[in-house]
């Protein structure tokens, strides 16, 4: 890459200036503000101007009160991420290997759901998972519901308004974020490698395991992050598809902030969530470099 130096030393700063300022004002400053709020206290329920006083107790309080939902959010998001990987990997792999000249179009298909409302797609799952829907009746008849009940994932004879439905909704909604990075990483692999492997190894599985999988790991990591992070903070799936024991931390923040007017509490929860995720991301970023997250 050629780089011009000299009189244009200022140019890059002029170029990044507005964008960086924008992100600074509307991303970094609010985060700082949120942090300040998380250390503030409301004197009473109808005190609308919480005072800043280095009050770390909010963190202990919200962790005590909403630790369950926090843990549940990571669990749900984790399971959904795993499910996305299991479903998304074959999709990306198949498109790369067998897509031929339709590759681009097939990848385009993965993005199509983005052109209908996320909310309406989630609401549509309430139709597909309704107690007497074809899908649920089939699952009931084949004993899948009975198995889920035995495992303890559902209580009754239904899917809607259960943790399973919420995890399913998360899996569905964030699947494209898994498939796309996987596709990008698989596409980079020279598939002739596979042929070569086919000659050397007896089984296709071991070729996959020893060659393709390791090479696609960056995609796996990037996809996992892009799925896991939005899933942990989501409240829409739990609202529409969940019941009384499947609320996530996003629902709590929404309730604390927008209904109960407990901004310090909501801020502390947000920050706690953010902190855990940031640590996880930094660890990943160390391993991969930020490039892989975004390509």
């Amino acid at each position: 890459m050629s780089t011009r130096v000299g009189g244009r030393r200022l140019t890059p700063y002029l170029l990044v200036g507005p964008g960086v300022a924008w992100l600074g004002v509307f991303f970094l400053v609010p985060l700082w503000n949120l942090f300040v709020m998380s250390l503030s206290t409301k004197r009473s329920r109808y005190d609308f101007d919480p005072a800043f006083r280095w009050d770390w107790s909010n963190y202990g309080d919200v962790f005590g009160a909403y630790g369950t939902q926090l843990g549940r959010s990571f669990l749900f998001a984790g399971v959904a991420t795993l499910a996305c990987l299991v479903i998304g990997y074959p999709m990306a792999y198949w498109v790369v290997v067998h897509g031929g000249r339709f590759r681009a179009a097939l990848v385009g298909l993965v993005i199509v759901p983005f052109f209908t409302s996320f909310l309406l797609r989630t609401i549509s799952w309430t139709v597909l998972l309704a107690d007497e829907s074809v899908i649920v009746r089939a699952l009931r008849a084949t004993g899948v519901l009975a198995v889920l009940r035995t495992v303890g994932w559902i209580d009754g004879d239904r899917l809607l308004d259960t943790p399973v439905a919420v995890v399913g909704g998360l899996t569905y909604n964030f699947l494209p974020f898994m498939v796309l990075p996987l596709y990008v990483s698989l596409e980079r692999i020279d598939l002739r490698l596979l042929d070569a492997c086919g000659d050397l190894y007896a089984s296709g599985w071991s070729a996959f395991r020893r060659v393709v999988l390791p090479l696609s790991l960056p995609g796996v990591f990037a996809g996992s992050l892009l799925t896991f992070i939005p899933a942990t903070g989501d409240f829409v799936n739990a609202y529409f598809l969940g019941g009384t024991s499947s609320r996530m931390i996003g629902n709590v923040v929404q309730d604390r902030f927008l209904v109960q007017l407990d901004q310090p509490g909501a801020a502390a929860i947000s920050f706690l969530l953010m902190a855990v995720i940031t640590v996880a991301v930094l660890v990943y970023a160390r391993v991969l470099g930020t490039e892989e997250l975004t390509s």
Partner: protein
Amino acid sequence: MTGSWGRRIVGLAALGGFVLLFAPIVVIVAFSFNEPAGRYNLVWQRFTMENWLHPFEREELTAAVLFSLRIAGAASLVAGVLGTLVALALVRHRFRGGALVDLLLVLPLTTPEIVMGSSLALLFLDLGVDRGPLTILLAHSMFCLSFVALTVKARLRGIDWTLEDAAMDLGAPPWRTFRTVTFPMVVPGVVAAMLLSFSLSMDDVIITFFVSGDGDANFPKYVYGSFQRELAPQVHVLSTALLVLSLGLLALSVVWQRRRATLSPGRV
């Protein structure tokens, strides 16, 4: 995986994945032709064209869709301009702090929307800025900016920049070089990124929830709020229409880019 069984299993799994992706969309399209029995268009009754004949019957819904389109247009424009400039700087120049800028761009992607939403709401509250169309636009342009900068950056990497240098060496002034050489090379990536921004903004619920005032509703927020009393079939109709429209636009842009690619001097 080269074994025929393996191949079949992968094929089936992939097919399953695609079916999963499209199942709710099929529901949305189908239910745009449903004649609901009560207020909620959630149980299939019978086929009707009524909803499609009266797509704008719910005035608030139509207003919400128009509002969304307007916000998405403005947000992708802001994000498109600012993000492209950042991407150009990162790809074309090496400068102190570049890595930090990279990190700053990635951060919004690795922050849950609920955190960005609540922090922005707090900012606007503290500043005494009334939450409304403007705050929604600011918030949307913020998260779109990252997407644009990163997407455009990835696209710019694949461009042959020697052309630009050649133009300069031949004595073209910087602005002219930009207009005749740089700009045409950059445009397809920017357009794609702005389309992405547009759909991200159209679709945003969580952040919008926090930064909108009483009375403003974009499309998703309207659906969420009105779900307390109804789910009108017009919601399905307008969603389907938007889907068809955006697929059409996408197809057009692909065709346009293909044509550009064949004409572009960069791809001789």
